[in-house]
């Protein structure tokens, strides 16, 4: 029995994707006139204490105005006023089945 588990553990496994990102606002790759917040929707309910969003500008400065909040399958973070430019959103999500997923995408602000 343990040999079966060992064999499974030695196989290359696909990246876990339990709480998958289903939609984002601003969307990945979008160009927007402005953004007061970033809202992400996932496929599973999240554990708020272990999930988060970071938003940074091209120079890597933090553009979030507060800590991200999560409720149900949605997570969002308020932003500081954004200037024209490209921004990177990095997120990590832990679903109620304790599995962690993470990802990143960019959007552009062009008033």
């Amino acid at each position, binding site marked *: *029995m*343990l040999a*079966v*588990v*060992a064999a*499974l*553990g*030695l*196989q290359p*496994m*696909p*990246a*876990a*994707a*339990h709480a*998958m*990102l*289903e939609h984002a606002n601003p969307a990945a790759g979008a160009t927007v006139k402005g953004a007061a917040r970033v809202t992400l929707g996932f*496929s*599973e*309910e999240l*554990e*708020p*204490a*272990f999930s988060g969003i970071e938003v940074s500008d091209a120079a890597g400065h933090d553009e979030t105005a507060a800590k991200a909040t999560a409720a*149900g*399958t949605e997570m969002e973070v308020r932003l500081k006023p954004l200037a024209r430019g490209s921004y990177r959103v990095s997120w990590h999500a*832990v*679903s*109620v*089945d*304790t*599995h*962690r*997923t993470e*990802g990143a995408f960019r959007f552009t602000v062009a008033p």
Partner: protein
Amino acid sequence: MNFALAVVRTAHLACLMTLFGAESMTALWRTGHSAHEGLPRWLLGLLGFTALITALLWLMLVVEQLGGGIAPAAIESVTYQTLFGRAMAVRLVLLALLAAATVAPVGPSVRVLLSGAALGAIAVSSHAAAAGAAEYFFLRAANDGLHLLAAGFWLGGLAVLARLIFAHPASTETLVASVRFFSRLGTVAVALLVVAGTFNAYLILFEGQGRWSATYLTLLAAKLVLAAIMIALALTNRLSLLPGLARNDAEARDSLTISVVAELVLGLLIVAIVGALGLLAPTMG
């Protein structure tokens, strides 16, 4: 996949399911028959304490996985701020009481209630429970819990039969009565297992998004094949071997021995697969 976590989950499930099933069979038998030689107390104690220790290890490994280190603050954070942690805290209390109940002078019904509650509660943080709309969460968790309990009854019942055959050779009359009894209840357990399991598979595979993981599907298929073989063996026991055993056919007794052992081994292999399945993503982004 976290190999250590898969091993710990497997050991935990195997011990808890066996204990629950064995004591369920013993308790149900006693409602209509004389005292039944279930699993010996020392084995119940071993199963109970191993279930408790592996549950603690399970919690620690998840804490490490989520936070990168095991520290009191991290343990507290996971325990109180995640659904898994809160469920595990309740389970640890149940498992501690269960371990005590394996050495205390209490009847099997107490152990059935404690082990059943601890086993069913695993479903709260399962793939099946998490898949789908929030308003139906407890319905999905209840279904998965039922699946676990039915599987536990089957596995533990087989362990009791194995004991009757090997360690405490029973008279043919007792063995026939026990196999017949288990067979009747086992039919109900298998039916519940199949229905609940089918619903679980639907939720996990069709409520999520993204393409299916080949690894997950392969393991699920392996689980189903092994389960089908177990059902075939169980049917053979009931329809062919049991009548032979009742006629005191020595060949039937030998065949039953092989069949029960084979079912037990297959059941434990399935538990090993389940130990890993719970850590894999059913679908990929």
